[in-house]
Structures are given as C-alpha cells and as structure tokens.
C-alpha cells in the first residue's frame, strides 16, 4: 500500500468523526501550547538574569565595612565605615587584583535648564569602569588627578541624560547637582536592568573625593561605604580573597582571634547561583508543562483504543479485501500521529501567541526559541507514535474472520 493512500485513509477516518478528532487533538494543543509557553517564560527569565550578570562585571568581589557571622551580616554592618581610600589603594597593589573601585554612594538632585531629576550618584575612582566592564558611550572618564583635586566633573548614565537633556548633547554642559555646578565630561554606555530589576542607567559618577568632601559630606572622612574588587581571573578568586583578608586585617590591626571588621562577598558566585536558579526554574516549568503533553498522549491512546474497537468490523472488511496487518497497523498509527502532529502545530502557534500576549500585556520578557517549538513538535510526534502503537498493534493483530464476525 502506498504512503499517500495510507495517509488518505487515515485522514478520511479522522474526518469521519470530526468532533472526536478535534477533542482528542485539543489535549495535544494544550500540552504543546503549555510547553512552548513555559519554555518561553523560562528562557525569558534566564535571558534577563544572564544579561544582568553580564552587565555586572566579571570576577567581582564586594568588600563591605563590618563583620559577618555565619548567619549573615552582623547587626550594624556597613554603618560604621572602616574601609578607607588607602585600603582601596593597597588592595589595588595586590598581584591577584586587576582593579579596585571604592564607592561612596548617595542620591542627589540634578538640574539642567528647566529639567530636574533625582538620581543615584556614585563617588568612585577611574578603576570603576574597568571593574564593572562598563564602557563609555562618549567623552572621557575623570583622571586620578581630578580625584586628588576633587574636581567637579560628572559622567552621566543614559537614563539621566534622557531625563535632563532629552535629545541634546550633554558633553561639556554644566549641570547643577544639589545646586553646585558640575561639568559633564562623559556618558556611560547603556546597561539595562540589574539582577534585582533596577535600572542601572539611572546613575551618575563623580570622583570619590568630590562626593565625600563636597556633595554628601561624611561623618567619617576618608572612608567609603564599600569597595568593588576585580580579580585577575576566575582561578585567582580564592587567592585574591585570602590576600585581601590578610591585608585588611593587617592594615586594620586586628589581633589574631578577633573577627574581621569587614566582609568580602563573591558577587560572581552569587550571580552564578541566580543563573542556576533561573535555569532550574525554566527546566521545572518545562517539566510541569510536559505532564500535560503526556496527558494529551494518553487521550490519544484512549480514543484510538475506542476507535479500534468500534471499527473492528471495518478492519475485518479491509483485511478480507487484501489489507495486510502492516497496512492496518500503519493506518492506525498514522491516525494517531496526524492527531498529535496537527495538535502540536496548533498548540505551538497558540503557545507563541500567548507568549506574545504575555510580553505585550504583562511587560514580562519571554523568549520563544525555535528549538523549543521543534522540540515540542518532535516530542508530540513521538508521543503519537508511542501511544498510538499499542492500539494500532491491537488492530493489526485482529484475525480477519473474528473481526468480520464482530457485532
């Protein structure tokens, strides 16, 4: 028997019972739709996390003032600053360390012409851009000399530029930050969202000394809130941590047996955990959705079994006029596969459609990948074969006279 005839017979058999075929297909539609949608949501989450991680900088430590206990940060950590600019300088000398940036953060009001905008200001050193792998869009970074002289220069993030300048070129302009004039010498390339969903481009950078002495003032002059430290390579992370610990303990004159007055955290490891979590989430979403695929497959098997029983006499007639058991097997198998593939195509379209709706309406990042659709359709076809096999076998093994005699 030829394949196109076989397909024709199968198609006709399905067409004879349209409502039932459609309902059977619905199981696959929902299953594949759910898988495609869930994979898209999972991939979206992963994409967001990975982008945030990439924007964070690599091989990164954060060094905070205050000790940590095994349960987390001890009460008051970070409130009594113990880290100084000199500590930062000293850490920068370590052979395992590529770059250091002390950070003195705060918020300030920016005014340019009639526009004003409140944003996060980070006082830091030129090493900041390297630590964060953050290129400039235009202009230049401030120099060490400008840090020493507490120059009133500022580098603006894209969100700030948008809100203060609209379309105009900010380079060389003077903005007022908490009423004092600062010259814009550079702009930061866009970064997007951070791991915790904040807009990283809503930021301005000034020399750390300017921040401490002029913009914010400090109850503890010469200290900073935290340091960002970049190790030279992933392999050197452990060495770098040990060297920093030893160095800071020595510089802070902490006697042996006393706890640290600082905390070093590996941001890269934290980010990797977040990435792993996102991946697990996406696998779990897919796995849960796969269950509905399985249920759809069982629905196909159920209907095919009913169909074989109902059509026993038809099978007998076909055999009497020359059908071999293989012809019967293939016809029923093909019916199951047509149901599952057709259902999966409709389901994939539905999944993509809903994914699109979700991204439009809920402002959630969903990433529909081609492989997820291909995977879902291939799995659906396999499910059709798997669950269609048993009923088809049953049909093919009927003996012609018994099938003919069946009432």
């Amino acid at each position, binding site marked *: *028997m*030829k394949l196109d*005839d076989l397909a024709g*017979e199968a198609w*006709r*058999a399905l067409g*004879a019972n349209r409502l039932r075929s459609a309902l059977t297909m619905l199981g696959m539609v929902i299953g594949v739709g759910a898988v495609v949608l869930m994979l898209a949501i999972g991939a979206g989450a992963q994409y967001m996390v990975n982008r945030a991680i990439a924007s964070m900088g690599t091989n990164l430590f954060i060094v905070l003032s205050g000790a940590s206990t095994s349960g987390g940060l001890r009460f008051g950590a970070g409130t009594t600053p113990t880290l100084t600019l000199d500590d930062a300088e000293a850490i920068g000398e370590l052979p395992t360390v590529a770059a250091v940036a002390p950070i003195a953060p705060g918020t300030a009001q920016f005014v340019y012409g009639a526009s004003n905008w409140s944003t996060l200001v980070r006082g830091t050193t030129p090493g900041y851009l390297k630590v964060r792998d953050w290129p400039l869009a235009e202009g230049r970074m401030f120099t060490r000399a400008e840090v020493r002289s507490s120059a009133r220069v500022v580098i603006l993030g894209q969100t700030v530029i948008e809100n203060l300048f609209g379309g105009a070129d900010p380079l060389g302009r003077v903005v007022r930050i908490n009423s004092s004039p600062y010259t814009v010498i550079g702009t930061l390339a866009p970064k997007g969202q951070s791991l915790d969903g904040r807009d990283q481009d809503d930021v301005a950078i000034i020399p750390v000394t300017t921040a401490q002495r002029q913009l914010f003032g400090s109850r503890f002059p010469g200290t900073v809130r935290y340091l960002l430290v970049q190790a030279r390579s992933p392999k050197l992370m452990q060495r770098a941590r040990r060297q920093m610990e030893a160095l800071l303990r020595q510089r802070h004159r902490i006697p042996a047996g006393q706890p640290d007055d600082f905390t070093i955290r590996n941001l890269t490891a934290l980010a990797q955990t977040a990435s792993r979590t996102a991946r697990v989430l996406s696998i779990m979403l897919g796995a849960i959705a796969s269950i509905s695929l399985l249920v759809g497959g069982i629905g196909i098997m159920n209907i095919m079994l009913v169909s074989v029983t109902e059509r026993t*006499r*038809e099978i*007998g*007639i*076909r*055999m*009497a*006029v*020359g*059908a*071999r*058991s*293989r*012809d019967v097997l293939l016809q029923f198998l093909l019916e199951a596969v047509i149901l599952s593939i057709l259902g999966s195509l409709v389901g994939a379209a539905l999944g993509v459609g809903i994914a699109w709706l979700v991204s439009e309406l809920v402002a959630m990042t969903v990433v529909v990948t081609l492989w997820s659709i291909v995977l879902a359709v291939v799995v659906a076809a396999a499910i059709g074969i798997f669950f269609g096999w048993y009923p088809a076998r049953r049909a093919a093994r009927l*003996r*012609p*006279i018994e099938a*003919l005699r069946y009432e």
Partner: protein
Amino acid sequence: MTAPLIRIEDLHKDYVTGAGRVPALDGIDLEIGAGEFVAIMGPSGSGKSTFMNILGCLDSPTRGRYLFAGEDVAGLDADRLAAVRSGAIGFVFQGFNLLARMDALDNVALPLVYAGVARASRRRRAAELLERVGLGRHAHHRPAQLSGGQQQRVAIARALVNAPRLVLADEPTGNLDTHTSVEIMRIFAELNREQGLTLVLVTHEADIAGYARRLVRFRDGRIAGDEVAGGGAP
C-alpha cells in the same frame, strides 16, 4: 481436463471452545475447476461458512491440504494469505459489509488500494464495474443511501474489481427479498457464463442453488452429496 483451480484433500477444522473440541470440518475432499459455478447447501451448523472461510484464505485449516491454483496455501502465514486474497479472491457477504463512510465508488476501489494500484486507474476500474452491475449512476451514493439489492451489487463489483480467479459468496441473498435475489443471481450467472468466472456460493434456498451448475451438500462437516445442478442442465 486442466488442473483444478481448487484441490482439497482430507481437510479438517476444529474449533476449541470451553466445552471442548468442535470438529466443524471433518475430512473434506473436493476439487473445483476454473470456470465452475458451485452451490453449497446443508443444514445450519454443517460447516459451510467454515469451509468458505478456509477456501477464501481468511482462515487456516487444522489439518489437511488446500491447493489453490497449484499453490499449497494451508500453511501460509497471515500476510501471505492476505496477498492471496488481494490478488486472486473476491468475497460477497450476506451482510454486504460495505464501509459506511465511503461512497459506492470508493468501496468498490478499496481492494485496489491494498493491491497498490494508482488512484486514477483505481477509480476508472471501479467505475467500470459499477457500470457492469448497473449502478453507474449511484457511484457517489453511500451504502446508507442504497437499497439492500443495490448494496449487494456494489459488494459484487468490489469482489470483481481486482479480477479474481475465484469469487466466494456466503448466503449473498440471505438478507434480500425474492425479487432482488433473482436480480443478484442473474448477475452471478451471467458473470460465470460470459466471463468464465469461478464462483462458489452458499445458500439455503433450492431455487437460488438452481442457478449454479454443480451442487455440493454438507452434513456434519462432511460432504454428503455432489451433483449437477439446474444451471448446468441444458
């Protein structure tokens, strides 16, 4: 005399049921030549249908030899039997056994699907045969839209469509009234007379058997008589 189309030697068929072994056929010896028109009669339960099923390669005997066109088919497996049915045997059943979903043309063409004939020639040949049984204008009616006699004519066309060497009919007029039965039997007689078709037919009615040229009587799974019948008389 040419070699017979069918040669059966000491054929046995036992059914095994909960009550034990039922010998439905108990040593049949029979030869049927090409071009014969044989009627089989006998009381209910005498093994006529059992015999027809084996003759038509739908079932295998428990014991004995069955040579069809010189080939021993008694021990063939299911697929080989299917191939013999597909290539050389046509069936007409008491209950018509048409597929309700399909129109007359597709029903007639069905055996050709399994014989691997291309669609266009399938349809041409099926239309030809519908024409021959007088249903050219009913090609696109479904079985439910046809009378019993018309349905049986569609079934006859289906039995003939792959030019079989043997057509078997188990009580083909059993579900039809007398007038329609006569119509059907005329078609059979004509096919036998004009095309030399080999026909074996089971019936309970003497006047139906009268269309055949040879009459075989069954009793308790054995042959109780073998004589020339009405159709064979001059």
